């Protein structure tokens, strides 16, 4: 079995589907806003034709709203594109900060998720040789698992530190993590194990730590 088949199994496909479903939900919301705002402009236009005076501020506000939603749509599609291309290379150089940035964006599409505050890494650029998609999947499901238990009003501090001469650690703090379970259970645990990632939750310290080896 080659490396690609070994890494990209049903668990990966399931995660891919879940993330795409959350993105499509976001896009539907954007389309609904554009559609209703365009409809409102159409209604106002009909009223204007009938002689009703229309407040220009309503027109300007509606046009601005459509423009903002189109920009939001482009941003969402850019994240979708980044996520989709993360399966291109089974194993390669992967920047942990880029993974965290994308996960932060993708988690923003989950209704139950709070905010991720990603702190800059104080050490050299934290690059590892791993499967970018699998690592991203593990981080995403870990963050989703945290927010499932802490709720949408929480803020999660995320930082990356050098752990030892063979690994980095990603720290998740400050969201009042009272309970934790991987959002998708065993599948993600298997994915984490497949790239040597270990997850350790310390209830007393309100901290979750993820160890990522330099190389798999």
């Amino acid at each position: 079995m080659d490396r690609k088949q070994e890494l990209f199994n049903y668990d990966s496909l399931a995660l891919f589907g879940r993330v795409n479903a959350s993105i499509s939900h976001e896009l539907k919301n954007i389309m609904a806003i554009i559609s209703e705002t365009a409809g409102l402009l159409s209604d106002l236009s009909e009223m204007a034709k009938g002689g009703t005076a229309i407040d220009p501020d309503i027109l300007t506000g509606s046009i601005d709203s459509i423009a903002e939603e189109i920009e939001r749509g482009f941003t969402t599609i850019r994240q979708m594109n980044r996520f989709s291309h993360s399966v291109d290379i089974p194993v390669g150089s992967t920047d942990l900060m880029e993974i965290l940035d994308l996960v932060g964006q993708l988690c923003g599409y989950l209704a139950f998720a709070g905010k991720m505050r990603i702190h800059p890494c104080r050490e050299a650029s934290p690059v590892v040789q791993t499967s970018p998609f699998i690592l991203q999947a593990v981080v995403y499901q870990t963050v989703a698992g945290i927010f499932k238990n802490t709720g949408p009003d929480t803020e999660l501090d995320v930082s990356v530190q050098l752990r030892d001469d063979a690994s980095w650690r990603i720290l998740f703090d400050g969201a009042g993590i009272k309970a934790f379970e991987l959002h998708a259970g065993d599948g993600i645990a298997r994915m984490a194990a497949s790239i040597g990632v270990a997850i350790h939750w310390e209830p007393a310290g309100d901290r979750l730590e993820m160890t990522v080896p330099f190389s798999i």
Partner: protein
Amino acid sequence: METDNTIKILMVDDEVKFLKAISDRLNLKGFEVTTATNGDDAIDAASKGGFDVAVVDLQMPGTDGAQVLKILKQNHKFIEIIMLTGHATVDSAVECTKLGAFKYLEKPYDFDKLVEALKEAFQARLTHKFESNMNRMAAIQKLSLQQSPLGLLREMARLDDGRK
């Protein structure tokens, strides 16, 4: 007795801009719209009464649409509820129907279909209220033949219990 034909709608969605656009359009069509951006605010607004139909987004942070549907149907006997969702599934449609949703629409939807659904829901509410009043009157008539005046008052209070 219904004295005002304006349909009073409670619109619930965590997407603020969507809420603004849709409520502006519905206001132009002659509906009276109150908005809520989360489930708890919707339940609070409904507790003050006066809504004919609620339009509720299924997926919201905190108290989600299914919970709002359940609580509104428990607390307000005659309110009709239309569920909106960006992610329609057979399971969620069945769950909402079981909880008493009048209709289940997927976003983005046709605005005219929403307006039609609102009018149908309002009609269903009136019919439901009318039938309930007829049943109540029939029950009172029957009781008045069997009960003392005090017993009749007690039974009427029981009939009215939870009727909002």
